[in-house]
């Protein structure tokens, strides 16, 4: 019974982790940029959902429709105007740049929203469903479904659409893609925009589940980082596998050796992966 419950908890949480990590993974994989602003995008998305619900009573499900294009534009502009200037520089330069952008955005949020914690509470609450004594909260279940749907959409974009193939081409070989007539700078901006849109949508979903504060951005970023390393960079299914693996390790570790050591265990696993399998669980060059 407890084992089943822990397993279900981990599966649901794993999908949420994947949702947090997928945009981060895409940007890292395609642009080779470790996008430290990702966590703050998620928090901004959460505030968007919270604000729309509080002031206009717009359900978070509709907020997804607003968040995706809004964050795409934000990401596109940031990449076009700022990041593209240094995109060919060594990875440390872009890392420092996104670190600076993150500081600006995060502190702007602390200034504007205050550091106080907020909670988006739906009325009436969505409650939980119980099957054979295993309890699953409905909001997490719906968020999991939405996370899977977003992942599926990204997979289809990369696989079916012309722009998606161009993104994959740029990721595989920048110079060859350029020779084939792909506008690399524009593709970079689109990939970063997609990453931001996924972060914004993740934020909207997280708003239902976790307390909202600018200070949680580092927690999200940390999870995204671990998931990417475990699952493999830039791979859609890798993010999913990494997320579920991380949640499983945390859940089982927490049950067997106590919650204080669950984090230790997950980071120990991270180190093992970096040594033994640096490409991650499903890491491959290119998308599928």
């Amino acid at each position, binding site marked *: 019974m407890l084992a089943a419950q822990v397993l279900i*908890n981990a599966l649901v949480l794993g999908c949420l982790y994947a949702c947090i990590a997928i945009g981060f993974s895409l940007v890292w994989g395609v642009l080779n940029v470790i996008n430290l602003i990702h966590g703050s995008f998620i928090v901004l998305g959460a505030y968007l959902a919270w604000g729309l619900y509080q002031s206009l009573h717009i359900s978070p499900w509709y907020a997804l429709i607003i968040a995706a294009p809004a964050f795409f534009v934000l990401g596109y502009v940031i990449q076009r105007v700022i990041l593209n200037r240094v995109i060919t520089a060594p990875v440390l330069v872009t890392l420092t740049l996104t670190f600076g952008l993150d500081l600006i955005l995060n502190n702007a949020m602390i200034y504007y929203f205050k*550091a106080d914690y907020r909670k988006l509470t739906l009325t009436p609450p969505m409650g939980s469903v119980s099957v054979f004594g295993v309890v699953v909260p409905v909001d997490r279940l719906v968020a999991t479904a939405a996370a899977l749907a977003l992942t599926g959409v990204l997979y289809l974009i990369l696989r079916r659409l012309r722009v998606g193939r161009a993104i994959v081409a740029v990721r595989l070989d920048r110079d060859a893609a350029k020779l084939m007539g792909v506008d690399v700078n524009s593709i970079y901006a689109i990939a970063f925009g997609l990453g931001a849109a996924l972060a914004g949508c993740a934020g909207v979903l997280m708003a239902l589940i976790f307390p909202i504060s600018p200070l949680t951005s580092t*927690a999200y970023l940390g999870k995204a980082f671990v998931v990417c390393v475990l699952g493999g960079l830039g791979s859609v299914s890798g993010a999913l596998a990494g997320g579920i693996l991380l949640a499983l390790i945390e859940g089982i570790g927490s049950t067997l050796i106590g919650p204080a050591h669950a984090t230790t265990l997950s980071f120990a696993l991270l180190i093992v992966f970096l040594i033994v399998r640096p490409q991650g669980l499903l890491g491959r060059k290119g998308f599928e």
Partner: protein
Amino acid sequence: MARSRLMSRRLNSLLLAACFGLSASAALAQDVVKFGAPLPLTGPLAPEAVKQQQGYDLWAEQANKAGGISVGGKKYKVEIVYADYQSNTPRAVQTTEQMITQDNVNFLFGPFGSGAAKAGSSVSEKYKVPTIAATASSSQVYDQGYKYLFGTFTPNDTLTTPLTQIVKAKAADVKKVAILARNDLFPLAIAQEMEKSAKANGLEVVYFEKYAINTLDHSATLSQIKSLAPQWIFVTGYINDLLLVRKQMTDQQIKAGVGDDDRWSCLSGIHRCGRSRRRKHHQRRLVASGRAVFRQGHFRYHRELREAVPREVQVRA
């Protein structure tokens, strides 16, 4: 109002004691008494610190409205110097030192919470600056033999012991307690006191674990606690932690037994809750209600524990 009066009266009397007793000659050249208050105004403890700052401001405003603090028959205006140490304890120590050496404060309000207050107290002790640890209740802060450190709270066990006794007297079906503590000085210290109080009162502690600071999810922990079927769940932490745990307890359909079944009681960052088949009968909450009555509720809590609680507890078990 009553609360602020109580607070300002307490602080006034303590400050006066400090003035006369310790450093009457330290800083009275000008007509202003300068207080330093290093606070975690940003970072994870910011929500707490902002409320704390409002409390200090209220006191300063009231003290100044009354003409200031009287020292040796002369009135001195109050000025509070704030600094943000970003919820980072080593930085709290640096900030404390800066306030003493550069801002030349006469008195200090210690950094927030037991851990930071203890760390900061070593600096203020070195420079012999009287310090009120306004938000520290763990005995580990006060057993250092320091002469310039003063507290306002009663020790942690004065919170857990009466609480346990009340629960034992009024809710006889409570036999098993689960304790989950944030791995941080105050939350852990009070959880350990709770464990002692529970054992001393014949309750069985079926679960005692710590969770890491910045834990994002408690579902595995709560599932395990649920499987142990305790009637009383005691979780310690700060606002973010308790919001999260409370939400996840509802998610996991863990129902309240000691208190209400839907609302929750949270005192000084303590969350009490339990599971009971007869929860319909448990309509009265045990102590104060509130979404997140936090450390600032401490003064009120002690008053309520003395006055209101015995009347309010009507658990018809």
